[in-house]
């Protein structure tokens, strides 16, 4: 017999402390089927979690609900409850105090996702070395998505806005539910055959179940095998799928995928114009450089041409001639002057001057000077020149002095 006797409170408090100290019970996830689910008017939820053999009481307080419970939990749901196991001393009961409740299937999916991600990553399928670059100017773009809905609409709208001349080819795929994965795979394979520049694979936002096809291993492998660069575009910014990891490029949304895949046509035209300008400018400058060289050479050639030399010689000759003529004329002038002086002096000595004042110059008919009577004969003709003329006379008489 045990000597010590404890009060009920003491026992419950002791157990409560034991539970609180326990590492495992402090943070535990329990899965089971919901039963006896009651929504208290204060907002707390009381329910029982059970499996085939056992049951445990659970409570989720109103304060935990906004973050911890994202669906309308009801009896029969298979759930995973995360929280701690504690004691309610007033009733001597232990129960699960839930922080978070999720549908059990989701937990499964998450685990599958993580397992596949790890497996493919280990196989190197996410490695950058396999990532093909997205061409800068795709002209033919394939799209694997549903033919209705926001995704295809956004891709077409954004693509056409950037490049109205792009050829879009849609493979209308089933992107959720049974058969989605094979449909997406055939889409990828069919478009890969078509020699396109890039393929966008994706869909709009949805629940994890809706997006699930993009977490299937076979879809991932089809993307990996695809020779054409693949842009994945699944759901919203926050959604990551296996397809995103294995694709050559991940777009946060279908619109963003269209932005990545399409170049802006106007930019392209501008770029071509810029190149055309540069090409013409560089040839122009080459031309003007050559023209300049040509002109320089031409003027050098000109200045060295024989014509210029001849001209120079001619000019030299002209100069010499001028000088010579000048010198000649000076000499001539001097001579003329001298001549004039001489002629003046000569004039002073002229016989004409001597025959002034009644003197005359007598010659015979042959022009021979007559200054003596010797040789004169009667009847001989003589010419006498005086100042203003001459006359002819005959010798009548001869007298000797």
């Amino acid at each position, binding site marked *: 017999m045990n000597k010590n006797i404890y009060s009920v409170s003491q026992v419950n408090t002791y157990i409560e402390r034991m539970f609180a100290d326990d590492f495992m019970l402090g943070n535990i996830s329990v899965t089971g089927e919901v039963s006896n689910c009651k929504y208290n008017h204060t907002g707390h939820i009381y329910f029982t979690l059970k499996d085939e053999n056992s049951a445990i009481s659970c409570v989720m307080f109103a304060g935990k609900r906004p973050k911890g419970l994202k669906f309308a939990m009801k009896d029969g749901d298979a759930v995973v409850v995360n929280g701690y196991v504690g004691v309610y001393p007033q009733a001597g009961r232990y129960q699960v105090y839930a922080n978070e409740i999720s549908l059990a299937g989701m937990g499964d999916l998450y685990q599958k996702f993580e397992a596949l991600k790890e497996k493919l990553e280990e196989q190197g399928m996410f490695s950058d070395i396999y990532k093909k670059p997205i*061409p*800068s*100017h795709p*002209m033919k773009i394939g799209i694997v998505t549903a*033919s*209705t*809905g926001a995704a*295809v*609409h956004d891709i*077409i709208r954004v693509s056409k806005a950037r490049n*109205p*001349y*792009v*050829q*879009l*080819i*849609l*493979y*209308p795929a089933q992107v959720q539910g049974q058969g989605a994965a094979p449909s997406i795979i*055939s*889409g990828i394979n*069919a*478009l890969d055959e*078509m020699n396109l520049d890039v393929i966008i694979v994706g869909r709009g936002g949805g629940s994890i179940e809706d997006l699930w096809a993009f977490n299937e291993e076979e879809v991932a492998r089809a993307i990996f095998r695809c020779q054409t660069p693949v842009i994945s575009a699944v759901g919203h910014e926050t959604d990551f799928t296996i397809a995103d990891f294995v694709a050559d490029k991940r777009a946060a949304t279908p619109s963003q995928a269209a932005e990545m895949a399409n170049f802006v*046509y106007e930019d*392209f035209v501008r*770029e*071509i114009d810029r*190149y*055309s300008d*540069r*090409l013409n400018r*560089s*040839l122009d400058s*080459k031309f003007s450089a*050559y023209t300049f060289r040509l002109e320089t050479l031409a003027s050098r050639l000109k200045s060295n041409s024989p014509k210029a030399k001849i001209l120079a010689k001619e000019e030299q000759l002209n100069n010499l001639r001028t000088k010579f003529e000048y010198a000649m004329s000076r000499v001539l002038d001097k001579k003329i002057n001298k001549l004039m002086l001489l002629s003046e002096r000569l004039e002073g000595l002229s016989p004409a001057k001597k025959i002034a004042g009644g003197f005359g110059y007598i010659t015979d008919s042959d022009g021979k000077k007559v200054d003596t009577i010797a040789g004169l004969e009667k009847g001989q003709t003589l010419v006498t020149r005086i100042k203003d003329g001459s006359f002819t006379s005959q010798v009548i008489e001869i007298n000797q002095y």
Partner: protein
Amino acid sequence: MEEKTVEQSFKDLESIIQELEKEDVSLDDSFRLYKSGIEELRQLSTKIDETKKAVLALSTDGSLETFEEDENE
């Protein structure tokens, strides 16, 4: 001529122009470079087929048909 990608054409054009912009390129080479540059430009412009294209949908039998978006979606 082998099908050249647009980026390859841009790259080639870039190197042609860089060559042309060099000081010591002869006039003959300039003409040759300019000619090939113009050819590259022409190819670039024709590479983009400037006709608006309808979105095509590939059906399971492999045929292509015009895809009309349902505006009510």
